[in-house]
């Protein structure tokens, strides 16, 4: 089980990106996190993934505090971030170096099948489309069989059709692996149709504004879906209208006056 308690992050420049974020995700739960740009969603995932250290609060998995990247947690970035010098197979197997070769091959093939890329194993990343590359990135995260999968807007750069296919893939993967997923997204429909629970965030500092439990998850359309979507939308509107705190506005004003006075 993944627990976040009072998680906060203040960056070196004094930007308070996240404050007092508390959340428990049940094993196998899909939690969608939605919010405007800059409200600390990526920061949240980076803290859970152990890439950054929180200023306050803790992340723990199965009672164990996470301070470094943890073997049971994996992160899928917003961009595929494939290693250009490795073939698709070697990219997928990147996290398996500690296993015997036969086991690696088995797992790589399994993961490539899951994302429908069996035929692409020998290609280099430069010969993949954006959607294919993102699927390789998903496969790369899956092979280590993480208990917790963090996804940072994994489909946002893709066209609507590919996005829907991949969303379905993700659900298939979830039903096979029963991984806990934290899915950051900008897309209300994506959040409501994939998640068991939707967290709406509010910026400056990033914190939880509202939490919507989806009554009948994984269904598009229907009264429940529409109702949940309406709630998420109104919470999101509320969050987006929240104005920037005084110091940020002041910072902008100073910045522009500097621009004006400079020759």
């Amino acid at each position, binding site marked *: 089980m993944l627990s976040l308690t009072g998680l906060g992050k203040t960056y070196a420049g004094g930007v308070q990106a996240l404050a007092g974020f508390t959340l428990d995700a049940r094993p196998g739960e899909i939690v969608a996190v939605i919010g405007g740009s800059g409200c600390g969603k990526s920061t949240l995932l980076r803290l859970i993934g152990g890439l950054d250290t929180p200023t306050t609060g803790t992340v723990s998995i199965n009672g164990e505090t996470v301070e470094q*990247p943890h073997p049971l947690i*994996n992160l899928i970035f917003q*961009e595929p*971030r494939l*290693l*250009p*010098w490795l073939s698709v197979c070697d990219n997928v197997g990147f996290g398996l170096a500690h296993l015997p070769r036969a086991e690696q091959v088995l797992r790589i093939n399994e993961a490539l099948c899951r994302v429908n890329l069996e035929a692409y194993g020998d290609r*280099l990343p*430069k010969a993949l489309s954006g959607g294919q590359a993102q699927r390789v990135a998903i496969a790369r995260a899956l092979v280590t069989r993480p208990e917790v999968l963090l996804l940072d807007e994994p489909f946002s750069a893709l066209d609507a059709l590919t996005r829907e296919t991949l969303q379905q893939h993700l659900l298939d993967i979830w039903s096979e692996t029963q991984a806990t997923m934290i899915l950051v997204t900008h897309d209300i429909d994506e959040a409501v149709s994939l998640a068991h629970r939707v967290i709406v965030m509010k910026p400056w500092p990033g914190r939880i504004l509202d939490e919507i439990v989806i009554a009948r998850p994984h269904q598009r359309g229907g009264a429940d879906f529409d109702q949940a979507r309406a709630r998420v939308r109104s919470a999101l509107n509320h969050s987006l209208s929240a104005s920037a705190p005084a110091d940020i506005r002041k910072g902008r004003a100073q910045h522009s006056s500097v621009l004006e006075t400079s020759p």
Partner: protein
Amino acid sequence: MTIGAAEAGLGAGVGDGRADTAAVSRRASWLRPSAGGWGGALIRFALAVALPLGAFLFWELAVDSGLASGRLVPPPSRILATLADLWTAGQLADHIASTCLRVLLGFLAGAAAGALAGSLTGYFRFVHAAVDPTLQALRAIPSIAWVPLFILWFGIFETSKVVLIATGVFFPVYLGVSTALLSVDRKIVEVGRIFRLSGFDLVRRILFPAVLPAFIVSLRAGLGLGWMFVVAAEFMGASEGLGYLLVDGQQLGKPDQIMAAILIFAVIGKLSDALLVGATAPLIAWQDNFSRGGL
């Protein structure tokens, strides 16, 4: 004779039906290095050698017809004759071999030291802060300025020559590796971190492949400087080597010998670079370059 062959090549390329239609359908597509086929390669080769061969031909005719004396600038035929003489006299191979050996040793030493220093400063912030300013200051010294000191320290024989060449090779390799390491994309390093790589594994599996293209470019720059510095090294008193042929040619007033040595420098310099590029190309074939794939 060479010119005739080049013209024949040009004719064959244009006459080749495949090259013909390609040239029509994609204007000047054979200029792209990736353009395939022997026709394209021949045309490109002919185009590359047209300028120097034309110049040689011009000078040959000018001297032949008495328009120029060719005393200080000997015509190509005389240079070739000198080359043949040197070769049959049996010393040329030795001269070439000793110069190549000096460059090779200096290159290996300088590249190894540059790669090591570049890795350390690129990887450890502390080392960078402590060492890089000094190295940058040393880099600002024209390396030829070290010659008198190196002679005092290492004598006038092989050691000082190899050290001078190594000094020349060191700096571009150092700079290339160090800056490449410092500018490795954080995003790719984070991939390594999320898979819990650290220390040596991170270097081996992420940093090294990421800087490899820049490292190879810096090796090429270093090798070029190696050829430059071997001349300076052989000027400071050598009894054999291509640089010796230069000095000897000047002292005895033999411009044809000087030109012959220069010609050999051009050929083996180009050859060694091509060798380096050819040997390393498979290592960086993964790069998604404009010239490789086009748009």
